[in-house]
C-alpha cells in the first residue's frame, strides 16, 4: 500500500511539475509527461523502477480517450467518414507496411520484415489525439483525416494479431501471453466472427436501450459519485467484454461512445470520464518516458537513430503521397504527414507479442521498441516544428472553412435550463437557425423534450466540468434560464470567473434578481414574466375597447419607462435601501401620470392649430 502510494505520489508530483513547465515553454503536455518520465525513470533520478506494469495499467487511458472521442462523433457523422477511414486509413497502413517491409528484406528474413512493417505502420493514437485536442485541431479538416487513419489502425490491430503468429520463423518460446488489451482468443473462424458480432450488437443495445433508463435512475438520485461510478463501470465493463471476445477494448469503448453520442447523458459522461482519462494518459506517457532504455540506445546509437529517422521519413513520405492521392487540400498535407509519422503504443504490445510467438528475436525487439519510443518522443517536437514554421504559412482560414463544412454541429451558444421559458427560447433560436447546446438538470423533462425532438443534454449547468464539456471554452454566448435564482447566480459567477469571454444573457426571476445580476456585472437580462404580463395588459386594454394601436403604444410606453428607471432604482437599492420603497412608488406614480397624459392631448386646441386657415395666425 505504502509503496503504491509512494509510486503514485512520485508520478503525480512529476506531472504537476513537468506539465505546467512544458506548457510555459509551449511544448504541449505530452512532451512534458515524457520528459517527466525520463527524469524520474531509471536513467534519471531512478525514482521508479517497474514501469511496464504501470504502462499496461495506464494504457487504459487510451481506451477512455477513445470512448470520449466516440462521444463526440454521432453515428451519422461516422458514417459520413467511412470513405476517409477505409480509403485514407487503409492506404496509409498498406503502403507504410509495404515500404517498411521492403526495406527490412534487405537485412532480415521477409517474415520478420513483414511483422515489423505491420507494427511500425501504426501511429500513436494517444499522443496524436491528445495533441490535436490540445491544439484544437481535432475538428478541422486535417484533424478528421488524421482521426480516420487512427481509427483504421485501431481496427487493423485485430487482423495483425491474427497474422503475426503465422510469421514465426523460430519455434515458439513459451506461452503466448500477450498484451492484456489486444488479445485474441483462439476460436476458429466463423465462430469467432459470430462472437465478435454478438459483442458489438450487445454494445449497441446497451448504449441505445439499456443505458438510458439506467442513467435516468442514477441521475434521479442526484448523487454525482454514483454517476461517475456508473460511467467508469460502463467503460471498464465494455473493455472486459472486448478482451474476452478478442477485440481491442479501445475500439469497443469507441463504439460505445459513438452509440451514446446521441444520448442526453453525453456531456455528463464526458465530464465524468475526462479527469480519469487525463490522469491515466498522463501516467502512461510518463511511463513511456521512463521506459526509454538509454544504455541500449547508447550502445546502438547509430542503428536506432537510423531506424527512427527512416521510420519518420518513410511514413511521412507515404502519408504525404496518400494525402495527394486523396486530393486533400494542399494546406492540410503537412499537418497530416507530420501528425502520423511516429510509431505507436501498439508497437510495444505487438513487438512483445511477436517475440513471444517466435517471430522476432529478443534483441531486435528491444532495439525496435526503443526506436518507437524515441519516435514517440519526437512526435510532439514535430508538432512544434509544424506550429512554428509550417503552420504560420498556411492560412488558418483554409483549415477552419473545412471545419464548418464537415462539422455541422458547431455549437456556439449554450442554453442552460430548458424549463418553460427555456423551451420557448430554444424553439425560437432553433427556428432562427441557431442550434444551442441545451443543458437541463431534470431527468424527466430531458427525456420528455428529447421525445419532442430537442437535443437536450442532462447535466447540472452550474458545474464547471460540465460547462467545459458543453463547449464553454469555445462558445460565444451562454443563455441562462434556470428555474431558480440561486443556481443562476452561481452559474453567472462561475462563467464570469472561468470564461470571461463568454457573453451572458439571463432570465431573472424578478426585480431583486435583476439587481443581483447587475451586481455581478451582467448587462443583458430580462425579468421572466415581465413581457408576458405587459402583453396580457395590452390584451386587457383592447378588450376594454381601447384602439389596438393605442393599447400597444401604452404597453410600449410602460415598458420603456420601466426599463429607463431601472438603473436609477438599482442605484437607490444599493446605496440607500430605506428610501427604495418610496422611490419605487414615486416612479410608478410618475409613470401613471405620463400614460394618462398621453391620452389627454387637447384635441380641440390641436384642431384649431390646423384648421385656422393660416398656420402662422
Amino acid at each position, binding site marked *: 500500500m505504502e509503496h503504491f502510494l509512494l509510486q503514485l505520489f512520485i508520478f503525480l508530483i512529476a506531472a504537476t511539475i513537468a506539465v505546467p513547465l512544458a506548457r510555459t515553454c509551449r511544448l504541449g503536455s505530452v512532451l512534458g509527461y515524457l520528459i517527466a518520465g525520463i527524469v524520474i525513470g531509471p536513467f534519471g533520478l531512478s525514482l521508479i523502477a517497474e514501469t511496464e506494469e504501470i504502462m499496461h495499467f495506464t494504457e487504459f487511458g487510451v481506451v477512455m480517450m477513445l470512448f470520449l472521442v466516440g462521444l463526440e462523433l454521432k453515428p451519422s457523422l461516422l458514417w459520413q467518414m467511412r470513405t476517409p477511414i477505409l480509403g485514407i486509413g487503409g492506404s496509409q497502413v498498406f503502403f507504410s507496411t509495404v515500404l517498411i517491409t521492403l526495406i527490412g528484406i534487405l537485412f532480415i528474413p521477409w517474415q520478420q520484415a513483414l511483422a515489423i512493417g505491420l507494427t511500425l505502420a501504426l501511429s500513436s493514437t494517444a499522443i496524436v489525439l491528445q495533441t490535436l485536442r490540445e491544439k484544437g485541431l481535432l475538428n478541422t479538416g486535417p484533424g478528421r483525416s488524421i482521426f480516420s487513419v487512427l481509427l483504421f489502425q485501431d481496427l487493423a490491430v485485430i487482423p495483425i494479431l491474427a497474422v503475426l503468429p503465422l510469421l514465426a520463423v523460430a519455434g515458439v518460446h513459451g506461452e503466448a501471453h500477450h498484451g492484456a488489451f489486444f488479445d485474441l482468443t483462439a476460436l476458429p473462424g466463423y465462430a469467432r466472427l459470430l462472437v465478435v458480432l454478438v459483442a458489438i450488437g450487445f454494445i449497441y443495445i446497451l448504449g441505445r436501450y439499456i443505458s438510458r433508463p439506467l442513467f435516468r435512475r442514477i441521475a434521479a438520485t442526484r448523487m454525482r459519485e454514483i454517476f461517475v461510478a456508473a460511467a467508469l463501470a460502463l467503460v471498464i465493463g465494455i473493455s472486459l467484454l472486448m478482451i474476452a471476445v478478442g477485440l481491442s477494448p479501445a475500439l469497443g469503448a469507441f463504439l460505445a461512445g459513438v452509440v451514446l453520442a446521441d444520448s442526453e447523458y453525453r456531456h455528463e459522461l464526458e465530464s465524468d470520464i475526462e479527469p480519469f482519462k487525463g490522469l491515466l494518459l498522463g501516467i502512461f506517457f510518463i511511463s513511456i518516458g521512463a521506459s526509454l532504455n538509454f544504455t541500449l540506445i547508447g550502445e546502438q546509437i547509430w542503428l536506432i537513430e537510423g531506424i527512427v529517422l527512416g521510420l519518420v521519413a518513410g511514413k511521412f513520405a507515404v502519408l504525404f503521397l496518400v494525402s495527394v492521392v486523396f486530393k486533400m487540400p494542399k494546406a492540410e498535407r503537412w499537418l497530416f504527414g507530420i501528425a502520423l509519422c511516429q510509431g505507436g503504443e501498439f508497437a510495444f504490445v505487438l513487438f512483445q507479442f511477436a517475440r513471444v510467438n517466435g517471430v522476432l528475436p529478443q534483441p531486435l525487439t528491444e532495439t525496435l521498441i526503443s526506436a518507437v519510443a524515441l519516435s514517440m518522443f519526437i512526435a510532439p517536437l514535430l508538432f512544434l516544428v509544424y506550429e512554428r514554421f509550417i503552420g504560420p504559412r498556411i492560412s488558418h482560414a483554409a483549415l477552419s472553412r473545412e471545419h464548418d463544412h464537415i462539422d455541422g454541429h458547431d455549437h456556439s451558444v449554450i442554453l442552460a435550463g430548458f424549463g418553460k421559458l427555456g423551451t420557448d427560447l430554444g424553439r425560437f433560436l432553433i427556428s432562427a437557425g441557431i442550434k444551442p447546446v441545451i443543458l437541463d438538470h431534470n431527468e424527466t423533462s430531458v427525456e420528455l423534450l428529447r421525445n419532442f425532438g430537442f437535443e437536450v443534454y442532462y447535466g447540472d449547468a452550474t458545474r464547471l466540468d460540465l460547462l467545459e464539456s458543453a463547449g464553454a471554452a469555445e462558445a460565444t454566448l451562454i443563455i441562462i434560464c434556470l428555474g431558480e435564482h440561486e443556481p443562476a447566480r452561481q452559474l453567472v459567477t462561475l462563467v464570469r470567473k472561468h470564461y470571461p469571454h463568454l457573453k451572458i444573457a439571463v432570465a431573472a426571476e424578478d426585480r431583486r434578481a435583476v439587481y443581483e445580476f447587475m451586481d455581478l456585472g451582467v448587462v443583458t437580462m430580462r425579468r421572466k414574466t415581465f413581457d408576458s404580463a405587459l402583453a396580457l395588459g395590452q390584451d386587457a386594454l383592447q378588450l376594454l375597447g381601447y384602439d*389596438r394601436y*393605442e393599447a400597444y403604444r401604452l404597453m410600449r410606453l410602460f415598458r420603456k419607462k420601466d426599463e429607463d428607471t431601472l438603473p436609477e432604482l438599482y442605484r437607490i437599492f444599493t446605496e440607500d435601501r430605506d428610501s427604495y420603497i418610496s422611490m419605487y412608488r414615486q416612479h410608478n406614480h410618475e409613470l401613471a401620470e405620463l400614460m394618462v397624459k398621453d391620452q389627454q392631448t387637447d384635441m380641440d386646441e390641436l*384642431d384649431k392649430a390646423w*384648421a385656422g*386657415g393660416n*398656420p402662422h395666425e
Partner: protein
Amino acid sequence: MNKILILFAHPAFKRSTINAALRDGIEGEDGITIHDLYGAYPDFFIDVDYEQRLCEAHDIIIFQHPFYWYSTPAILKEWLDLVLEHGWAYGSQGNALAGKYTLQAITAGGDGASYRTGGTNGHTIGELISPYRATASLCGMHWLPPFVVLGVHRGLPGVIVNGHVERYRQAIIALRDGRVNYQEAARHEYLNSNLKAIIREP
C-alpha cells in the same frame, strides 16, 4: 360590380370625428372591405402576403386617412414600402395592380383657400399628394382625384359632417356599381368637387 378595398389609416380612431363618421357611413355595404391598418398592425409588422392577396381580390383601392403633415399617417408609408414589392407591383414581372383604380380619401384641418398656390399652405392638395399619383402610374394603376374633406375640426356642425358622410357614401357606392364617369372625374380637382357631374344615376 367593382370590389372596393378601403385601406383605413388613423392612429387614434377613438379620437377621430370625421374619419370615423365617413367610415361608419359605408360600413357593412356589399362589396366594400374596410381594412383598418393601425388596428391590424399596431406594431407596424405588416403581413405583406396577406395585404397582397387583399389587393389582388379587389378592383378599386382607396387610401382613407387624415392629412398628417401634408402627407399620410406613418403606417401607410410602411405599407407602400413593404407591400408594393418589386416583381409584384412593379418591375417587368410586377403587374398585380395593373388596371386597378386607386384614389385617396383625405380629411384635413386646413381649408380650401389654404391649399392654393399663395394660400397659407402654399400648395394644392393635388401637388402634395403627387407621390401617390406617381406610385399609381408606376404600378400601372388608374389614378383618380382624391375625395377631400377640408377645414375639418371638432366644432364642425352636424349637418355639415352629415353632408360629407352622405357624399362619401354616394361616391363609394357609385364606384362600386360602375356608375362613375372616369374621364369626367379626371377633369376635376377633387372627386367630390362636383359629384353630380361624374356620377350617372342608377
